[in-house]
């Protein structure tokens, strides 16, 4: 999905939709918000951007969008340097940053007309049609004529998304896109994201809903205290902490002994559950060995570590605000 002509003009490191090298922001107060960030968002990916509150996600997104000047380091979006190339890059980028911001005294439709008028590339002749299409896409057609101040949080969120979809985009930057939506709305937005991604749009998604990231994202990065803790394919991240073999049994002591004999490491017994790192052999044989040894097995299986566990292991602080 990379624009080859742009790539020729501006050979960047890799062909990522977003590439940062040593990106750093120190605010005037001396606070280091983002510290030497090396982020690579592959073109065509759905990229989850994770981190506790105050970890520097928002500052990073604002630097990528040319709203904040980095203290040092570089950021390239769609192969072009930011913030220098904002006027060339941003028409191809749809963004929802820290929630929607609307003109309460204007209708939903007029809000979109205004944001579209702000884009110098947008064709005024197709403006009304594109606004109507964007409203339809987020399910707001019926409420388009209502003043935005009368909108619920979920409707405002949808309108913010519609603003990001006024044009066909190569990159969507969505900060907490399902915030304030009901479960039905969340599902709609997720399927919308999948639909856009299948059209080849790169989606950069920040969220604190880890199962959401796990459901829609192909890649993810985790930030903590201004630094990048890890990045990569979601499957790899979750697998980074390998799945554990879990045996449920009324005979935990015997089971633990048999598992050790079968080569399982780190065996832990908790009441009727015995967990261990699975040995390098067919698990069917391990199960057979348990049964042969007279261990009554109620449950036998491998539990994959969830992204949430991986996340907590990486940031070590869950979602507490970083101090």
């Amino acid at each position, binding site marked *: 999905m990379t624009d080859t002509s742009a790539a020729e003009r501006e050979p960047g490191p890799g062909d990522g939709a977003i590439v940062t090298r040593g990106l750093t922001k120190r605010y005037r107060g001396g606070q280091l918000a983002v510290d030497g960030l090396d982020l690579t968002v592959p073109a065509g990916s759905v990229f989850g951007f994770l981190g506790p509150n105050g970890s520097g996600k928002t500052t990073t997104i604002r630097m990528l969008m040319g709203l904040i000047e980095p203290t040092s380091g570089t950021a390239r979006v769609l192969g072009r340097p930011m913030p220098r190339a904002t006027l060339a890059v941003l028409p191809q980028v749809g963004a929802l940053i820290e929630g929607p911001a*609307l003109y309460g005294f204007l209708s939903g439709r007029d809000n979109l007309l205004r944001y579209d*008028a702000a*884009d110098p590339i947008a064709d005024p002749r197709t403006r009304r049609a594109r606004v109507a299409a964007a409203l339809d896409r987020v399910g707001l057609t019926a409420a388009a004529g209502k003043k935005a101040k009368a909108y619920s949080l979920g409707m405002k969120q949808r309108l913010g998304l519609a603003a990001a979809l006024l044009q066909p985009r190569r990159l969507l930057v969505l900060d907490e896109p399902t915030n304030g939506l009901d479960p039905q709305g969340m599902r709609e937005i997720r399927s919308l994201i999948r639909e856009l991604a299948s059209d080849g749009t790169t989606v950069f998604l920040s969220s604190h809903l880890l199962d959401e990231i796990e459901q829609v994202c192909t890649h993810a990065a985790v930030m903590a205290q201004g630094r990048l803790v890890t990045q990569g394919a979601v499957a790899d991240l979750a697998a980074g902490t390998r799945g554990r073999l879990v045996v449920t049994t009324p005979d935990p002591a015997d089971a633990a002994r048999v598992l050790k004999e079968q080569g399982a490491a780190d065996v832990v017994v908790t009441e009727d559950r015995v967990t261990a790192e699975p040995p390098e052999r067919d698990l069917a044989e391990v199960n057979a060995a348990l049964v042969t040894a007279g261990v009554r097995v109620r449950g036998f299986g491998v539990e994959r570590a969830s992204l949430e566990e991986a996340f907590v292991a990486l940031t070590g602080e869950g979602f507490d605000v970083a101090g």
Partner: protein
Amino acid sequence: MSRADLDPAQEGTGGTAQESAGRTARTTQESTEQRIPLARRGSLLLNELRTTLRRWRTLALLGVLAAVPVLVGIAVRIETGDGGSAGGGTGEGPAFISQITNNGLFLVFTALAATLPFFLPMAVGVIAGDAIAGEAGAGTLRYLLVAPAGRTRLLLTKYATTMAFCLLATLVVAVSALTVGALLFPLGELTTISGTRISFTEGLGRALLIALVVAASLTGVAALGLFVSTLTNSGIAAMATTVGLLITVQILDQIPQLDAIHPYLFSHHWLSFADLMREPVYWDDLVKNLGLQALYAAVFGSAAWARFTTKDITT
């Protein structure tokens, strides 16, 4: 939009890194910009004008301005119901007030003289102060900038809209005054300050010219307000600061001991518009006034640009 909007350096926010990459970006950016038809560049200005006029605040300000000539007109009418002339003809009250009973057209000059020291610049201060700070406070500024409106283009749009408001506000006062004057008082030939007679049509022409000069007199306040607006993320704070500066300047202009600085105060030559009612027109103060306004627009316009194009948008 002006040439300055095409300046590719507009987003060059003082960055020192990657100079060569930056230079390449500038050329490509410039070519992108030049392909954009003028009609599309004007979209934002049209939208901005429409949006400004749809705020109840704007309409309230215009309503107050329209009410001033009505009040003055009615007051003069009641005061002179017995056949006397307002202000006793001794120069009390706003300029030209004593002439209103003879000719309703003078209500236009009186109303402009009454609103120029405070009501008009206050209204302009509110609009200019809110221009950037109000958008920043509401968070809409970040979406305009990622649209991407372009910082220079947005600032020029805001300034052009504020100037359009100056003109509109002045015309509202003038038209309201003309209507009230025509309803309550006779119209006809009028006498200039120099004592010569001019026809009513020429008087109308002078009135229009005066309205334009009054609108131009507000250029300095508009630029000052816009600069203040780039300093804060609170629209209310920016409006209050601008109006506060206006009051301060008006007070300083009244203190004789400070006459050394008086020629540099943006309000000092405001009432020179009355010189357009002389025959022949006395241009000295008018030119000084317009020159001073241009100076304020240049200084504070540049300051606003320097500030806004390098500002971190964190709201």
